């Protein structure tokens, strides 16, 4: 058997190879970790949006069944629960407020009065419209030390189907 060059590699060559390998490995690892974080964040955001939408639909269902159930409650934070075949608003006296969902999300359903300006448009202030209530659903969660949130806001009215 004949091998022409038996000198092998210099230590510096081995070190350069190892360094390059480490740099590539770290780069690929970081990319994979960042990719996983983005996927996990997107999943959490989708879930939060679904939970917020669920509450908004429930609030709409409550008012379709009985306007006073929403129209007559005091402005504040509420939790939407179920009693028999009906959704009911339960006062949220928690400190901090909110309903814990799946151990990761906090959902706050806030009901407030609605106002109209001189032109009859819905506005931040003005004359109260007793046939309208503003619903804001906020879902928050922790994502790598940051508090993230999805918020949906809508008006419900004492008009059928609106």
């Amino acid at each position: 058997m004949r091998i022409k060059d038996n000198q092998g590699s210099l230590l510096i060559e081995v070190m350069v190879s190892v360094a390059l390998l480490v740099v590539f490995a770290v780069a690929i690892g970081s990319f994979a970790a960042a990719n996983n974080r983005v996927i996990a964040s997107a999943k959490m955001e989708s879930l939060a949006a679904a939970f917020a939408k669920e509450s908004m639909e429930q609030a709409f269902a409550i008012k379709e069944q009985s306007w006073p159930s929403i129209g007559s409650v005091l402005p504040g934070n509420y939790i939407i629960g179920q009693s028999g075949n009906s959704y009911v608003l339960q006062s949220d006296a928690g400190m901090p407020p909110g309903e814990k969902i799946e151990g990761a999300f906090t959902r706050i359903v806030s009901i407030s009065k609605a106002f109209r300006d001189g032109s009859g448009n819905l506005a931040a202030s003005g004359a109260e419209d007793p046939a309208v209530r503003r619903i804001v659903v906020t879902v928050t969660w922790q994502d790598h030390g940051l508090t993230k949130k999805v918020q949906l806001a809508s008006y419900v009215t004492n008009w059928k189907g609106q």
Partner: protein
Amino acid sequence: MFKIFKSQSGVTLMELLVYLGISSMVMLGSTLFLVQTTKIRLSSDNQKLTQHSSRLALEKMTLSLRNAYDVVVSADGTRATIYSYNFNDPGRPIVSVYCGRDGQLWYGQSFVIPPDDGALSPVIEAGVKVSTVQFNKVSASLHVRLNTVKNDRESSIESTIAFRQK
């Protein structure tokens, strides 16, 4: 003739063996990587298909419930009959039926009375199996739980859809 190759001595057996060993390992690694990524892609496609099918079904139900004035859910929760306003002919309400059975979600629509089971058509595309359909009427809303399966992947979607109540 020009001298193209400086050395005509060829490669030794050891060099050839080392080359074959390294190239085999590279080929094996590449093949395993390809097989694995293909498996993941197929699995991901199945997951997307189940989710897509479920979303389409829920979208269809949302449209059916848009002008509904009442919903009747069967005792076992697998059938929802939706009564909607017919703006063209108010005396003849539109009746839509969603029914989960035989691994499929079935849908049909008629006027005044619910359509026969034989007239129902599948909502979920072929190849995707419906493992669970559960309807629950709460206040003026229909709560739907829909699980779909394709091969190794399952999708579970729950949704609350409000409707107008008479």
